[in-house]
């Protein structure tokens, strides 16, 4: 009796209870947002875990579109009509451009699933993100920010991550023109545009992405991938010139494409 009324004992009990219930990390994810590329998905345990936070850093300010498109495609390739909630600040239209629905439709995504939210400033963006992740039923929530995001410190990041986990919402933090900083994200990626496989007459081909896994809670990081987006199969596929970091002459690319077609 005396023991339990002691404040220290009470705290110990609470800690034991939290530890027993599984804590923050040990709860298994409810599912995975797969990329469709088997080797890529297997390497990170099935895909991007649902109900968790994932960070996408654009390798360079000019890679903003590649990072945004990768996050959007992973979310939009899930079947169904679940909306993709995309939060950005008012100046994003000028910096990285308007999100252009005809382009998304041509990538095979359904632009009707997009719900765009425009916040006036980063503070409002964070407040709206906190509301958006607590709303179950979305395919994912993308929070797009440009440059340093001092408001998103460890506390704010942890609050977002916990909110997302409780509601089962997948949160994609899209960090453009920014350098990776410590955070509680499940995975952290650096995304860059990659040279595409050329088509006939030296035309640019399907979207290609250079990905680097900077951090993964569940395993080793540092892996690099080069993926193409195939909109007919709605999946990421192995880049045709995998491993060839040096751009091959255009003629070779054409020839290989011709051979593949034949």
């Amino acid at each position, binding site marked *: 009796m005396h023991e339990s009324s002691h404040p220290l004992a009470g705290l110990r009990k609470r800690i034991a209870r939290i530890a027993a219930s599984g804590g923050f990390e040990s709860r298994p994810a409810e599912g995975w947002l797969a990329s469709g590329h088997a080797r890529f998905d297997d390497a990170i345990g099935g895909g991007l875990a649902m109900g968790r936070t994932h960070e996408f850093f654009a390798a360079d300010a000019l890679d903003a579109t*590649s990072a945004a498109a990768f996050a959007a495609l992973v979310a939009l390739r899930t079947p169904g009509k679940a*909306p993709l909630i995309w939060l950005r600040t008012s100046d994003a239209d000028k910096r990285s451009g308007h999100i252009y629905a*005809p382009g998304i439709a041509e990538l095979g995504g359904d632009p009707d699933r997009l719900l765009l939210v425009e916040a006036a400033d980063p503070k409002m963006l964070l407040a709206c993100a906190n509301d958006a992740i607590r709303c179950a*039923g979305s395919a994912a929530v993308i929070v797009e920010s440009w440059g340093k995001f001092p408001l998103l410190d460890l506390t704010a990041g942890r609050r977002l991550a916990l909110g997302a986990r409780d509601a089962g919402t997948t949160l994609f933090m899209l960090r453009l023109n920014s350098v990776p900083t410590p955070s509680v994200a499940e995975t952290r990626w650096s995304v860059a545009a990659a040279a595409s496989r050329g088509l006939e007459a030296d*035309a*640019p081909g399907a979207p290609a992405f250079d990905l680097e896994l900077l951090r993964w809670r569940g395993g080793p990081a540092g892996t690099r991938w080069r993926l193409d987006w195939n909109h007919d199969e709605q999946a990421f596929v192995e880049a045709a010139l995998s491993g060839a970091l040096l751009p091959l002459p255009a003629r070779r690319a054409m020839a290989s494409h011709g051979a593949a077609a034949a």
Partner: protein
Amino acid sequence: MRLASVDAAALAVGLRPGMPLADARAQVGALAVVPHDPVLDQDWLDRLAQGCARYTPLVALDAPDGLILDIAGGEHLFGGEAGLVADVEMRFARLGMTLRHALGQTADAARALARYQVRPAPDEASAIRRLPVAALELEPEATTALVRAGLKTIGDLASRPMANLAARFGADAAMALRRILGDAPSPLDPRVTPPPVAAERRFAEPLGSSTHATKILAELAAEAIEELAERDKGGRHFRATFFRSDGLARTIAIETGHPTRDADLVMRLFAERMDSLADPLDPGFGFDMIRLAVPRLEALGASQLKLEGGAVKDAAIDELADRLATRLGRGRVRRLRPADTHIPEQAQLELPAIDAPAPLPWQAPEAGEPPTRPFHLFDPPQPIEVIAEVPDGPPQRFRWRRAFHAIRRYEGPERIAAEWWRRRDNGGLTRDYYRVEDAQGRRFWLFRHGLYDEKPDPRWYIHGVFA
């Protein structure tokens, strides 16, 4: 410069509206003059009309300085006509307004009595007959002609055959007379149409705190929603008006993307709106009445929950969109819809999600082809400097945002002509679009604005970035 309006003291020393300012200054040395601002006057009249909505929902503006209230059937709430008039007088006196008022069987009669009555009369009919002919508001010449003919009052005119009046002064004069006499209808054009569903609460003692007012609003919301449920309707707009005891009123409105009968949701949206107000709800000397109106209704049947919970999830997203739109502004939560044009920046519409725009089909991708439209679009396009091999050939390298890009692959041009069928000047210049990829593998959408035979030195722009 002339006097637009004068106060009682100025009238007493002989100043009149319409008098030149110089004459007035000569007549009265210490004259306080304020520039006339008709827009502000109109605004003030509108605010007074909003405050008068406490007496009746049918309030019409009689610009520039009059209000007509249809009080039929509502005056007993204020202790009869006399009580209502006393209440109006008390509130307007608090605002420092001088009031002239009259009650009449028709709107035109009341208006004429308020504006032109000079002699008291035992009843309304005789009061109207004693009004001067100026009450008809005819042309000044016509009024003078009537007075010269010895017809000085409405009663004089009414005793003559109407046809003679119409023959001499036109059908409008006869109509004006019949309206004042009540022989012809004088419809009101009310400032606001009464909302289909409304709940209100009056207080004997004004409420001094906004928190208490919010609690009352929640009760009103529950009442209004009960009425909505009886009629199988849901509300899309909700408008709360807080009437202050000094006669002014503050209206706070919310809207939802789908018809709703959820009182908690409505109150959450109201709380969201009140938190985001630039100037918070100020009780002043207290609120003495709160009204919640539902001006926009839509059919909403009894809801049934889906077993798999799909409806609940959709509802959660809709509520999120409503809440964010209430906080940020309705235009800041958007959905994308296609528009039937080939001008790239006009091919998508960003519509408020709260209007629940109907989905339309998008252009499907061509199998095996890379996308021809970018993921990000710049609107307006950003100017770039381009070096091309031949003037109307594809670009070789370009400079954008102070960085050079060497082009390794390109496809184009895709020629997009201006919409010459819409504009008289042929709609502007033709654009030649190129899909290009630079040495780092980034894909851009560039265009040359104008063909060389349209313009001597056409400029280049970047319009978008591909994934």
